[in-house]
């Protein structure tokens, strides 16, 4: 009966335009629609599948502002049992290390955690390091880039997929697993799930509740800061290849020039 915590992040919808604030270069949250990151839907789906096979409980954990409750509700309507929302203005502008520290502190408040499941990489920050840092802080083994996860008694097995190929990992629980795009197809919440989510417990905590010092978090105390930001230059028009019978050769030359072949 694994007790699973899923780390979920609310991110700007990739369908909408994304912008940084003029002043402190943090995300301009008013600008973009905020959604539960798709990779975290997959993390939740994996947790639910494990729960459906072995029973157990799924808690979603999110560090984020007020409106992150929408992302949390989505996780609950997919089928997670309860949620922890770390909400504190002092967290504004926190970097990856600070976020991970807060996440680890929140995970420690959950009794008898067997498995922490995260996304490999958030679609906005794209640090790809939170799961590893959290694992370090908790002293749990980390099994990252999972495309297949099996829980068996007190061990977890993961097929790890990277550019180098497939690696088969095994660790004893508790452990941190981070999942990749190919892990599964997340379910859409059903209406029953949506209605049930309203009644599921969401515990809202601030950093004091977690024993984290305000001097350790936030933009002013971040280990890294965004000094300057510029919008991405507009995409340049592509190069046109006229086919005068030698189109194939020209395309091949282009690809060689780009070091693609």
């Amino acid at each position, binding site marked *: 009966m694994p007790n699973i915590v899923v780390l979920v992040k609310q991110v700007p919808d990739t369908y909408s335009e994304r912008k940084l604030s003029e002043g402190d270069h943090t995300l301009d949250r008013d600008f973009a629609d905020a959604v539960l990151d798709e990779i975290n839907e997959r993390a939740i789906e994996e947790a639910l599948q494990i729960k459906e096979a072995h029973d157990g409980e799924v808690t979603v954990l999110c560090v984020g502002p007020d409106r992150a409750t929408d992302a949390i*509700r989505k996780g609950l*309507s997919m089928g997670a049992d309860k949620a922890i929302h770390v909400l504190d203005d002092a967290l504004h502008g926190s970097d990856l290390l600070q976020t991970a520290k807060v996440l680890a502190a929140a995970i420690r408040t959950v009794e008898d955690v067997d498995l922490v499941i995260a996304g490999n990489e958030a679609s906005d920050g794209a640090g790809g390091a939170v799961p590893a840092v959290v694992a370090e802080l908790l002293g749990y083994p980390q099994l990252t880039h999972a495309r297949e996860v099996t829980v068996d008694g007190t061990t977890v097995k993961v097929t790890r997929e990277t550019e180098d190929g497939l690696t088969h990992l095994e660790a004893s629980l508790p452990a941190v697993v981070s999942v990749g795009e190919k892990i599964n197809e997340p*379910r*859409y*919440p*059903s*209406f*029953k799930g*949506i*209605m049930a989510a*309203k009644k599921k417990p969401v515990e809202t905590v601030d950093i004091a509740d977690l024993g984290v010092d305000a001097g350790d978090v936030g933009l002013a105390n971040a280990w890294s800061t965004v000094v300057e930001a510029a919008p991405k230059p507009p995409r340049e028009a592509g190069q046109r290849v006229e086919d005068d019978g030698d189109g194939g050769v020209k395309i091949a030359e282009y690809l060689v020039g780009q070091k693609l072949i």
Partner: protein
Amino acid sequence: MIDFRLSDEHETLRKTVEEFAREEVAPVIGDFYEREEFPYDLVAKMGRMGLFGLPFPETYGGMDGDFTALCLTLEELARVDSSVAITLEAGVSLGAMPVFRFGTEEQKRRWLPALCSGEMLGGFGLTEPGGGSDAGGTLTTARLDGDEWVINGTKSFITNSGTDITGLVTVTAVTGTKPDGRKEISAIIVPAGTPGFTVSKKYSKVGWNASDTRELSFADCRVPAANLLGERGRGYAQFLSILDEGRIAIAALSVGLAQGCVDESLRYVGEREAFGHKIGEYQAIQFKIADMEARAHTARLAYYAALAKMERGEPFKKEAAIAKLVSSNAAMDNSRDATQIFGGYGFMNEFPVGRFYRDAKILEIGEGTSEVQRMLIARELGLR
């Protein structure tokens, strides 16, 4: 105060279906449509989301939702595609609803769980080759022979009746003569595959090409007497009450199509240029889109108003007829305008608006023609 806001749950459902339609339906449905193929995978996914069980209680495998939930879902699906929307609409309000409303406990337990899960589809056969508007003119007969009904006749244009997952069709048939000399019409459940029940090949249709519509024939088709659905002699009246609800559902579907025309047009006029300007900068185009939005909006208010009355348990016949009349009209007008805005591309199958244009017309015909809606409204006003 009149409050048109949706509840949190309804709004979340609406958003979820919007996402599903955009991510799962939109990318693939054009191909199914052109091949005139039934999209089994999409229907299965809709089933897993619980869409076929929306207005039914959990005891029968439903979602414990309401008719509002169904209508919002139909609107969002039809914004992207009407074939999947009508498959759901017919599956719920024609396939499962009669069993839920009029079935015995045993019939409900036998059929509803599979119908609610979307793993099985049901159809309702009322229309005959000789006529649909005059539903009392049914020629199909059912004669009780021992403990079996023996059914003979033909039904036309029956939605969801010939798919691989069709489990039943409920048909109306003349089962005798009433004391006043009128026909006694009853509804009878015919399980798919019953000997004597033949499903003909698909029609070649103008629209709704990824939905299933068949002609059905019954030749000495025998089913158990226990397959009578509801009271003997009440088949016609029962069906009419189901149709009143169904009209709100078709109105929601029509609003979805009308809104889809606005969505597509807005996208296109910001990209397409003519005479050195985006066509969206021309007032003639802007006014067209403004009119389209106004039609979709007012039609939506009409179906919300009918829904509100229905959910409160008040009579809603007139409001449902008005909603169906104006929203099918809005769908027709908007699809014509959207196609015009797309120019030659509007006439190409690869753009959704061409599909919307072909799918709009049936909305003025199915589940009661526009003339029938006007008849109903006039009657509700006391005109005889």
